């Protein structure tokens, strides 16, 4: 199973070899998708973890023990409401039903971020680029 997360490192732990230990200890396949790690500063990293579900959970516990704050990526998909034209193209692919037409008389396309899994499929599919991945 694959899981995507955002890791936040405080000033105190930015230089610890945490990712190295995560890989060694848990034998997870780790894919760093984005990182902003600067000396003695708040840093972040977007990771994709691949491995057994139970092992991933243990790995996440380890990260928390190390003082890393973890955000699930699914909270990071946002819609730029000004750019959304309510065309509906995204409703073809959104697997969780987060993007859907609620009211068939207005034909407005609703984005329910509560249902969003962060799969990112909508990002390249949305023709006017209204769906964005937000990483802080």
């Amino acid at each position, binding site marked *: 199973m694959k899981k995507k997360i955002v890791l936040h490192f405080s000033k105190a732990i930015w230089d610890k070899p945490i990712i190295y230990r995560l890989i060694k200890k848990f034998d997870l396949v780790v894919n760093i998708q984005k990182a902003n790690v600067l000396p003695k500063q708040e840093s972040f990293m977007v990771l994709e973890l691949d491995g057994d579900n139970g092992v991933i959970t243990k790995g996440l516990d380890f990260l928390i023990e190390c003082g890393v704050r973890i955000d699930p990526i699914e909270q990071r998909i946002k819609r730029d409401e000004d750019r959304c034209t309510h065309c509906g*193209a995204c409703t073809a692919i959104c697997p969780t039903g987060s993007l859907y037409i609620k009211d068939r008389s207005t*034909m407005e396309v609703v984005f329910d971020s509560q249902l969003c899994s962060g799969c990112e499929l909508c990002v390249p599919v949305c*023709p006017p*680029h209204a769906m964005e991945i937000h990483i802080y």
Partner: protein
Amino acid sequence: MGKYQVEKSIAEINEKIKSGKAVVVTAEEMVKIVKSEGEVKAAKKVDVVTTGTFGPMCSSGAIFNFGHSTPKIKASKVLMNDVPAYAGLAAVDVFLGVAESTFDDPLNKIYPGKFSYGGGHVIEDLVAGKEIELVTEAYGTDCYPHKGFKKSMRLEDFPYAMLTNPRNAYQNYNVGVNLGDKTIYTYMGVLRPKLQNANYSSAGVLAPLFNDPYFKTIGLGTRIFLGGGVGYVTWYGTQHNPKPVRGDKGVPSVPAGTLSVMGELKGMSPKYLVGLSLLGYGCSMAVGLGIPIPILNEEMAHHTSIADEEIIAQIVDYSEDYPQATGKVLGTTNYAALKSGTIVLDGKEIQTVPLSSFVKAREIAELLKGWIEKGDFLLTESQVLLPSEK
């Protein structure tokens, strides 16, 4: 006594518009009015019906004159924000097409291609007031010696900027499905395998050319809402089919009539000209277009009373039949069914997906209605009507 019980001229309607007495309704509202009052009464009451559509229209672009440099230039290669514009026109004239990608776009080499930026995006950026970079290259002549320059420009810096779309407002279109066993990326959007979704692209009841299916009022010189500003119908568009298979009220059940339109880019809005990236297909632009239909007689009331359930569209497979031009049609449906969220084909329920925005189409019909009610927008008489047959 004429052919009709109600007879109005465009000049008479314009007089009413000027005195603020014209009755203007949207094509959606007209359906109800005709239903409750009948065609003759509706024609007496209503002067203008407004329509609207907003969707990807790949056959769009703009003609620019970017003004002369010192020394003068005859540009042979031109990039606008890295998007090639066609420079085979006079010295400093170019045509920028919305389906053109940046010169270094990987296209579909990394499939499905993202097509992040293209001509439509340049046009949107310009109408949004942003600066773009113009790069020109020339071979140099005795009268135009300059070999090229680079310059930042805003829309107001162009002496001439004309949205010039050779095919817009398609009168009806296919409903796209995928019979194959892998996802396909088309100009009809993403089509998931084995009939998982059916994509359509028309505003249905509000679509301009469903409301005047025989082009009785729309023709050369018809003033329209275009891209948030004012434009004109200049002639029929590419692939215009004057004699399609027709259903209720003369409305074609296949892709049929098209319009060629133009209008000053200055005065248009990024809300109604939106650069698009169609995954795996290419760049495009969503164009907002609305046409006022004068209710000259009860026949026009009849045509503008067309409702979603009366408009038929054909379902076509885009995995094999469309690309291989087999001409096969899997079945038909109507716009009421398409807008309901599911259609049924061969006993299978399929999710429907719109590609053109009904929200924006409605916004456009309402905006145009407001302009006419306020007397800001007068109707023009078409100088030559477009080819159309029963």
